[in-house]
């Protein structure tokens, strides 16, 4: 064999060896939301320590990215579980089905409060959802049943009870799930308080959505990146600014920032859990049923996640900032998980 042929043969062998199908996994693979990441990893770590199974790998890809990976196929080279800080969309269910992922188990794990906070050095404020909408939406009603570009520069122009400081809100960029949830719960919540906009929902849903979900772009809302610690630091440096971030960051930094009251309710653990605090969203994860029994430990992992020790009111996830579901809802979801009930939209 000439040298050239030898090289060719060697290359072919190497490529085939590399292209060999992925070997069966003995480790659970989890992807998805960065909001659920701290909870998912905590359970994964405990699961790895307390059982003989390997510690699951948890990737932080964002809710959308996670579902895309999850729905990319049914083989063992795809993730077993994906975390999401919103519910799966019907378009994603369709994508899953297209790629052969038909049996998905949905698990709702708890709530996450989104807070509007400012530095301790600033004045504590009480906002309504309407105030938030008027302060941050791109177009706001002009009082005559039409829209105008947001003219408000100071908080007290919106509501005389608010301090006379410039509107300056630091928050996550549009790619973030937190931003989606904030737009849906806070902005739309305030938007709906105008009857004529609410009436629009029936006639022209997309126009309604664009009015209620579009954040102003004239510098009053500052996109501060996905890192919530950074927002806390910036708030500390600028007592006039407000920040939008998850409840767990407020809890960990209570010596630096204070949460604003929204519709008269403070962002506190019990109040979010009871559903009184208006800006709270549900967190989920989705399990590929085909992988149960193929990748070892999935059932046991689900049992660990849905145990009272983990997601209960005094569970270790509550210590990490997860707001637990009500007792009934927990029982309900735990049953669904045990029987591996398929997702129903």
């Amino acid at each position, binding site marked *: 064999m000439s040298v050239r042929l030898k090289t060719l043969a060697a290359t072919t062998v190497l490529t085939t060896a*590399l*292209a*060999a*199908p*992925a*070997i069966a996994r003995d*480790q659970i*693979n989890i*992807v998805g939301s*960065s909001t659920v*990441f*701290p909870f*998912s*990893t*905590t359970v*994964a*770590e*405990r699961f*790895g*320590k307390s059982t003989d199974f*390997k*510690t699951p*790998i*948890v*990737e*932080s*890809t964002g809710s959308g990215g996670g579902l895309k990976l999850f729905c990319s196929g049914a083989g063992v*080279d795809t993730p077993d579980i994906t975390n999401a800080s919103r519910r799966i969309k019907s378009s994603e269910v369709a994508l899953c089905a297209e790629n052969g992922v038909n049996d998905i188990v949905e698990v709702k794990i708890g709530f996450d409060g989104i807070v509007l906070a400012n530095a*301790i050095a600033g004045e504590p404020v009480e906002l309504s959802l309407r105030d938030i909408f008027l302060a941050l939406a791109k177009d706001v009603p002009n009082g005559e049943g039409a829209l105008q570009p947001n003219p408000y520069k100071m908080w007290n122009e919106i509501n005389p009870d608010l301090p006379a400081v410039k509107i300056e809100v630091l928050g996550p960029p549009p790619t973030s799930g937190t931003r989606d949830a904030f737009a849906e719960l806070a902005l739309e919540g305030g938007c709906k308080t105008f009857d004529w906009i609410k009436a629009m929902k029936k006639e022209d849903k997309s126009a309604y959505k664009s009015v209620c979900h579009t954040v102003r772009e004239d510098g009053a809302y500052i996109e501060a990146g*996905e*890192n*919530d*610690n950074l927002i806390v630091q910036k708030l500390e440096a600028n007592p006039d600014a407000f920040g939008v971030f*998850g409840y*767990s*960051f407020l*809890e*960990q*930094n*209570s*010596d630096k920032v*204070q949460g604003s009251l929204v519709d008269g309710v403070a962002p506190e653990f019990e109040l979010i859990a009871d559903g009184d605090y208006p800006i709270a969203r549900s967190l989920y994860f989705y399990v590929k049923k085909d992988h149960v029994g193929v990748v070892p430990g999935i059932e046991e992992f689900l049992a660990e996640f849905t145990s009272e020790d983990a997601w209960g009111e*005094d569970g*270790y996830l509550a*210590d*990490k*900032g997860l707001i637990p579901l009500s007792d009934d809802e927990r029982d309900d979801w735990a049953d669904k998980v045990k029987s591996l009930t398929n997702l129903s939209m």
Partner: protein
Amino acid sequence: MINFTQDAGFGLRGRNKSEKRFQWAGRGAIAISLAFLVIMFFSIISTGLGALQQSQIAVTVDLSAEEVDPENVGDTSFNSLLKKSLRNAFPEVESRKDKKRLYGLVSTEAAFEIERQITQDPSLLGGPQTLWVTASDDADLYISGQVDTDLPEKQRRVSDAEIALLDKLMASGAARETFNKGFFTSGDSREPEIAGILSALMGSFLTLLVCFVLSFPLGIGAAIYLEEFAPKNRMSDLIEVNINNLAAVPSIVFGLLGLAIFLGYLGLPRSTPLVGGMVLALMTLPTIIIASRAALRSVPPSFKEAALALGATPVQAVFHHVVPVAMPGMLTGAIVGMAQALGETAPLLMIGMVAFIVDVPTSVLEPATALPVQIFLWADAPERAFTEKTAAAIIVLLTFLILMNLIAILLRRKLETRF
């Protein structure tokens, strides 16, 4: 016309002044950049040093045969044993809420630590023993003096009740700060007090190993061929331009390429140092090729010509006489490329290495993460105690970067021959 003999000093003062001005401007520029460097190092090191100290709490555990069966140590619930000994130490704690606070003073790892200490030294069994266990992150913040007790209770992570308990522990000498060995010997964790960087460090090492094994031979091979053998024509010009362009491509693009080809087409396992190393190898290749070509070009042509004149074939001339002289320069290029690869996160994001991985990887086929990724993940964690861990991980990364660059400089100094 200027009369040079007469006007030799024309405008001399002005010219000297502008010379001085320029020199001072230069010194100023250096001083400013040095000041930034010092500020950066100071802030990172002053935050990070805290992570080298870890608080521990002493608990007296009853290890008599009634509690722990010497034959079956593994059957014992060390968690309830630990809770019991904490209750014994603070008999005044009664309500459920206060008990929860009390248990929260020690790390969730504490029960495992007791078990490990017993497995290591079975002679502890038989009676009550005082053992040191890791304190929880909040307790650690208080013991190391990072909690401002002047603030109202609501604004603190550590409540008055917990402070009372901790003060009692500290007064009786049952709380201490020790060197945090665990930071260097354990993997990642969601609990800041037991999180370590060993898994990330091993991941980085394995990834760089793969990267080096792939990119170094390929890189210098390409450089030698292009510089010494390739015909100089349009085609080789095109290749040269493309290599230079490749060096400037944003690294995330290589990650996307890796995702599509290595994971998608070749079906290699996700999150592994093998794929990470392959992606980073693509990224470092241009750097190595460019540096190696420069090193080869700096070897005087007379070396090669002399060898050729004595009857050596071109391959012999190049490999016996040119490459050995250029080797230090090539190695330097490779090390600089590796240092670049060590600091990369973006391409690793696409191939699943930005992940929570507890187990320390031992082969290139096991899931792993890398040092800069670990920094990224810790910087994003809500727990306050991760701040100092982040800074400490940055110190470790910087140390390795400085070491690698130092080796590159030393290699150049020691081995390079000047002509």
